[in-house]
């Protein structure tokens, strides 16, 4: 028994060591950026590994002077809000139809559902040029031109999650609502939406992260630098700072930290949101 306990403890300790090691390795790139961000350019070149003698925030000050971070954040935020408002409204309604309404021909319903789900396999890179072309024909550009591609990219994922969730709600709800004299609008807004809060949270988090980090579409559609999003702004660091490595690093750190803080606050929701689609699909 005692031998057993010792070997079990030993196993536990080795698991702890392994876990700490893996965690440290994954965190290392972030720690390295933090270290570099408080060093001067000459320190970075001469002795990259050393710990600087004093804490200096010069890099951050210089980064703030070079780039209009407020503008980048504002632009990204605006696109996020507009896209989310549109996609939540339209995909929730269409999913409600597919999950709960009665079709004369049920085959049509499952065909529409299947059609809306196919998008999960479509890569954005085949869409870039055609979307640019379609935008020109319709007359959309800059931010307005980004919103619809983002909405379209969200449709398959949202449909998958919304329909799955709304199908799991008991059908007696609708019947009771109808008997109580609810209109369709009241049923959706006052009954189904409040009951769907968890899945709405998942969908919001997944899509906000996607739009926040998105680069390929933004790089094709946004032409005017005053409209750049954070990701697009970051892609020009090299050009803006030239060989000012410390400036590039400080700017990246200033983009990573708010995102990690947001992650820290909503960690559970974010992890659930990002894995939900994969597991459901």
């Amino acid at each position, binding site marked *: 028994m005692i031998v057993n306990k010792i070997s079990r403890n030993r196993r536990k300790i080795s*698991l702890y060591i392994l876990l700490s090691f893996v965690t440290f390795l*994954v965190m290392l790139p972030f720690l390295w950026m933090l270290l570099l961000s408080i060093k001067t350019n000459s320190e970075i070149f001469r002795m990259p590994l050393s710990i600087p003698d004093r804490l200096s925030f010069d890099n951050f000050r210089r980064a703030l002077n070079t780039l209009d971070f407020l503008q980048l954040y504002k632009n990204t935020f605006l696109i996020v809000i507009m896209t989310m408002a549109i996609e939540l409204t339209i995909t929730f309604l269409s999913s409600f139809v597919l999950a709960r*309404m009665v079709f004369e021909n049920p085959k049509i319903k499952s065909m529409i559902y299947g059609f809306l789900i196919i998008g999960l396999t479509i890569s954005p890179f085949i*869409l870039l040029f055609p979307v640019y072309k379609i935008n020109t024909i319709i007359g959309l550009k800059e931010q307005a031109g980004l919103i619809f591609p983002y909405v379209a990219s969200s449709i398959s994922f949202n449909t998958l999650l919304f329909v799955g969730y709304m199908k799991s709600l008991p059908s007696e709800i609708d019947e009771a609502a109808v008997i109580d004299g609810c209109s369709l609008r009241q049923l959706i807004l006052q009954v189904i939406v409040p009951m769907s809060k968890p899945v709405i949270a998942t969908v919001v988090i997944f899509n906000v992260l996607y739009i926040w980090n998105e680069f390929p579409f933004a790089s094709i559609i946004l032409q005017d630098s005053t409209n750049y999003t954070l990701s697009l702004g970051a892609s020009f660091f090299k050009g803006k700072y030239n060989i000012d490595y410390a400036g590039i690093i400080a700017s*990246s750190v200033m*983009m990573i930290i708010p995102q990690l803080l947001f992650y820290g606050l909503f960690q559970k929701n974010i992890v659930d949101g990002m894995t939900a689609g994969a597991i459901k699909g």
Partner: protein
Amino acid sequence: MYWLSKKRYIVLMLIPTLLIYIVYMIAPIIVAVGYSFTKYSGIGNAKFIGLNNYIRLLGDSTFMLSLKNTMVIFVVIFIFLMVGAFSVALLLNNKLKFNGTAKALIFSPAIIAPIIVGIIWVFILDPEVGLINSIMNEIGLEKHTQLWIGGDKLTPYCVAFIYLWQQLGYVATIFIAGLKMIPEEVMEAAKVDGANAWQKVRYVTIPMIRSTISTAAILIITGTFKIFEVVQQLTNGGPNHVSETLVTYSYATTFSNGEYGYGMSMATITFIISLMITAIYSFFAREKVE
């Protein structure tokens, strides 16, 4: 519910989604395939040239190289990310203190914008100021320092490694969700039968989470063919296009060189390849279950 299901409502509620989806998701694919049979420089009209773009692809050595690089990236990622994430999932599935914190930290790279991930790794892999070569110089391995990026060989492997770093926690979380679904009794029974740790994983865990493994595999396949920003930040396909991938090369051909028709033939082929690999994988995964 039947009473509220008037045709007018159904149509009205479906139309906006269907319209945006068709115009910005389905039509673009038809447009892309259409342009792939043309020569188009952006000015004037596209000229129909049949299969010429596809024939040209076969003789384009840069395209073949980017196909090879993409395959290298894909194979390295597929093997190491599946095994790595599965191991991390097994590790995190033990009842250890700080498990939650460790999981949260290991997951965190997945939420960072790929473009920033690229910037971070430039400062790790850079031959002069990067972390890896600095450490190697410090501990006396100067002779073994490498041109991790910007050379002619290692960039695809680095791209794969970076993707591995970013997705490790994410894929592990998917595996953990699968592990949680294995009933406790099954593991107990295996233990009673005297199965060792390896046997339990091989004969109980893996067969029981087969569908989760498929999910992760398909996610990795489609994800690999979307790697773009990291390559762009590391080398931008250079030097001399040696580190180009299918996606970066088609992007550069389309938008930097303005060869829209030719670029679309690449995008089409890339899309078909990723669909084919997914289909092949799904086929074999299904065979095994039966």
